[in-house]
C-alpha cells in the first residue's frame, strides 16, 4: 500500500536531539579525551623525528600522521583502533535503548515516519564523528605548524581533507553495523558485543584467513611466476572484503604521494617510471577511488539492512 507524506518529516528534530545527546554524553567525553591524548602523544613524538628533516620533505604535514618512533606507533595506528570503537559506542544502543526506555512508541506516534528516526540517528552519529575528526585534524595541523615552523601547502590541505572524508566513510561502516545490530538485538550489551566481535574478526583473524584460503584456492604447485601472481591477487581480493583493508589502502594512497599502485606491480610495468616522484592529489584520489567507493557502498548496504529490519519490527514493546 502506498503511503502519503514525506519520509523526511521530523528528521531535523531527530538529528539535532541525537547530536545534542552524543555531544553531551559521558561516553563520548571519555572517547574524545582518549583520542586527543593519543593524538598529542603521537604528534609530539612524530615532530621530534621530523624536525631533523623539515627542509627535505615537501609533504611533512602528511608525515605527521604516519611517522612512528619506537616504542610508540604512529597516529594512524591509534586512529585505526579508536575510530571503530567510537563509532560502535555511538550506535550500539541507538534503537534498542528506545525500545527499552519505552520511548519508541511515543516518538513514533508523532507525525514522522520511521525513516526519519533511523536516518536522523545515523546522520547524527556521522556528524558527531565529523566534528570530532575535524577538530582532531585541525589540532594536529596546528601543533605541526607550531612545532615544525612551516605552514601546510595547498596540496597537503587537499590530502588532509580527503583523509578526513575517508576516515568518515570508515566510521560510517562501523556506525551502520552497530546500528543494524541495535535494531536486531533487544539487549544493548548483545548488540555491542556482536559489533565488537565483527570488528575483532576483521582486525585480527581476517588476514590469517585470507592467507590460508588463498593458498588453498590458488596453490603454488610448480613455482611459476603466474601461479604466485594469481595467489597474491586472490589474497588481495579476499582481504579487500574487509573494511579495514579498504581504509588502509585509501590512506596509503592519500598520505603517501609517491604511492603509485595498491597491488602487485610487475617490473615490466615500471619501465620509464621515475621512482619516488609524488603524484598530484587528484591522481592519488583516482588510485584510491575504488576502495573509497567500496567503503561508501558498504555503509549504504549496512544502513539498508538496518532500515529493512527496523521497518518490519513491531512497535509495541
Amino acid at each position, binding site marked *: *500500500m*502506498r*503511503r*502519503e*507524506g514525506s519520509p523526511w*518529516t*521530523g528528521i*531535523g*528534530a*531527530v538529528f*539535532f*536531539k541525537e547530536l545534542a545527546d552524543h555531544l553531551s554524553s559521558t561516553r563520548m567525553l571519555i572517547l574524545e579525551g582518549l583520542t586527543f591524548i593519543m593524538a598529542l602523544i603521537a604528534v609530539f613524538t612524530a615532530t621530534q623525528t621530523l624536525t631533523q628533516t623539515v627542509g627535505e620533505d615537501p609533504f611533512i604535514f602528511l608525515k605527521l600522521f604516519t611517522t612512528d618512533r619506537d616504542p610508540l606507533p604512529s597516529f594512524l595506528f591509534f586512529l585505526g583502533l579508536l575510530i571503530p570503537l567510537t563509532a560502535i559506542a555511538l550506535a550500539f544502543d541507538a534503537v534498542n535503548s528506545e525500545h527499552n*526506555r*519505552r*520511548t519508541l*512508541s*511515543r*516518538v*513514533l*506516534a*508523532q*507525525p*514522522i*515516519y520511521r525513516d526519519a528516526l533511523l536516518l536522523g540517528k545515523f546522520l547524527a552519529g556521522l556528524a558527531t564523528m565529523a566534528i570530532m575528526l575535524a577538530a582532531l585534524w585541525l589540532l594536529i595541523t596546528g601543533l605541526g605548524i607550531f612545532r615544525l615552523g612551516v605552514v601546510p601547502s595547498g596540496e597537503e590541505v587537499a590530502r588532509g581533507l580527503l583523509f578526513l572524508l575517508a576516515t568518515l566513510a570508515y566510521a560510517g561502516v562501523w556506525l551502520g553495523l552497530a546500528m543494524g545490530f541495535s535494531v536486531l538485538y533487544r539487549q544493548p550489551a548483545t548488540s555491542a558485543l556482536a559489533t565488537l566481535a565483527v570488528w575483532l574478526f576483521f582486525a585480527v583473524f581476517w588476514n590469517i584467513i585470507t592467507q590460508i584460503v588463498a593458498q588453498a584456492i590458488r596453490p603454488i604447485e610448480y613455482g611459476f611466476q603466474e601461479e604466485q601472481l594469481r595467489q597474491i591477487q586472490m589474497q588481495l581480493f579476499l582481504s579487500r572484503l574487509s573494511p579495514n583493508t579498504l581504509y588502509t589502502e585509501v590512506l596509503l594512497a592519500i598520505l603517501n604521494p609517491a604511492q603509485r599502485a595498491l597491488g602487485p606491480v610487475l617490473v615490466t610495468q615500471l619501465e620509464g617510471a621515475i621512482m619516488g616522484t609524488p603524484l598530484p592529489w587528484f591522481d592519488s584520489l583516482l588510485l584510491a577511488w575504488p576502495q573509497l567507493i567500496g567503503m561508501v557502498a558498504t555503509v549504504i548496504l549496512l544502513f539498508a539492512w538496518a532500515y529493512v529490519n527496523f521497518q518490519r519490527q*513491531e*512497535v*509495541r*514493546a
Partner: protein
Amino acid sequence: MSAVIETTNLTKHYGPVVAVDNLNLTLQEGEVFGLLGPNGSGKTTTILMLLGLAEPTSGEARVLGVDPARRPLEVKRRVGYLPDSVGFYDDLTATENLGYIARLNGLSWQETGRRTVDVLARMGLADVSERRVGTYSRGMRQRLGLAEVLLKQPQVAILDEPTLGLDPEAAHEFLRLILDLKRDGLVVLLSSHLLHQVQAVCDRVGLFHKGQMVLEGTVETLADQVLGGAYRIKLEVSGDGLGDTLSGTPGVVNVTREDARIYRLEAKSDCRAEIARRVVAKGVPLLSLSLERPSLDEVYTRHFHGGQYEA
C-alpha cells in the same frame, strides 16, 4: 453527529494468531469510549492500527475521515496517543522531553515554549518542569504523558491503560483529568481492564474478547443485555417466608437470598414501592430497601464466566 473513528471489518493476524478479528467500531463526536478486555485481547493492536503503526491484514480504519494506513502523518498530527507503560528520556527534564515532541510536530520555537508551560501547568507539573524525568514518580510520568498528548492540541486522544500501576488517589486524579478533556470537546478512546474506572468516565464501552468486540453500548444497556434486569434491589428484613411474595411481584426477574436477612432482587423496573407494600402487608419488619446501580464488574464477570466464553 459524525463518526470520528470508524473501522470496518478491521483484522490483524500475527502469523497464525488472530489479534483483531473483523472489528467494527464507531466513535462519535464528543464521546469517551472505553475499550475493555483482558490482557492480550487485541486492544493495543487495534490502537496501533488506528495510528498507522501497524498495518491491518484486511479491513479498513478511518480516523477523522483519514485512512491511517495511507496517510499516517495526518492522523498522527491530529491524534494524541499515550502508550501503556509510557517512557521518557530520563536524563532530560520534562520541558526538554516535551520540547523534542513539539519539534517532531513541527511547532515553532515560541509556540513550543507557550504550549509547554501551559500543559505542564494544567497537569500540575509546573513546579517540577525543570527536574530530570528520571526522578519522577509513576503518577507524575503518567501526567507528563497526558501533557504530551495535549501538547499537540489533538482532536482525539487515545489512552492505553492510563491508570495501570497508579495508586487509587493518583488514578482518581487522572480520571478527573480525562473528564476535563471531554469537557474540552476531545474524543477519548480509553483502553483498560480496570472496570470501575472505565465505568466512571466512559459514555460507552466495548468489551473485547479474543480480538472481537463481543458487547458494545452504555453500561446500562450492557447490564440490561447481560444481567437480564437493569435494576438491582437490595432488601433487608428480619423474617422468613418471603421468597414467593418477592418473586411474585410484577417486574422482578430473579430473587437470591444472601443470608437470613438480606435478599437481592433483579427487576426490569424500579418496583421498590410495590415490594415495600407487599413485605409490610405480609407483616415482616422491613429494615432497609435500596436500589443498586449495576456495575460493569458484574457485567464483565457474568459475561465472560457465564460459560459462553470459556477459554
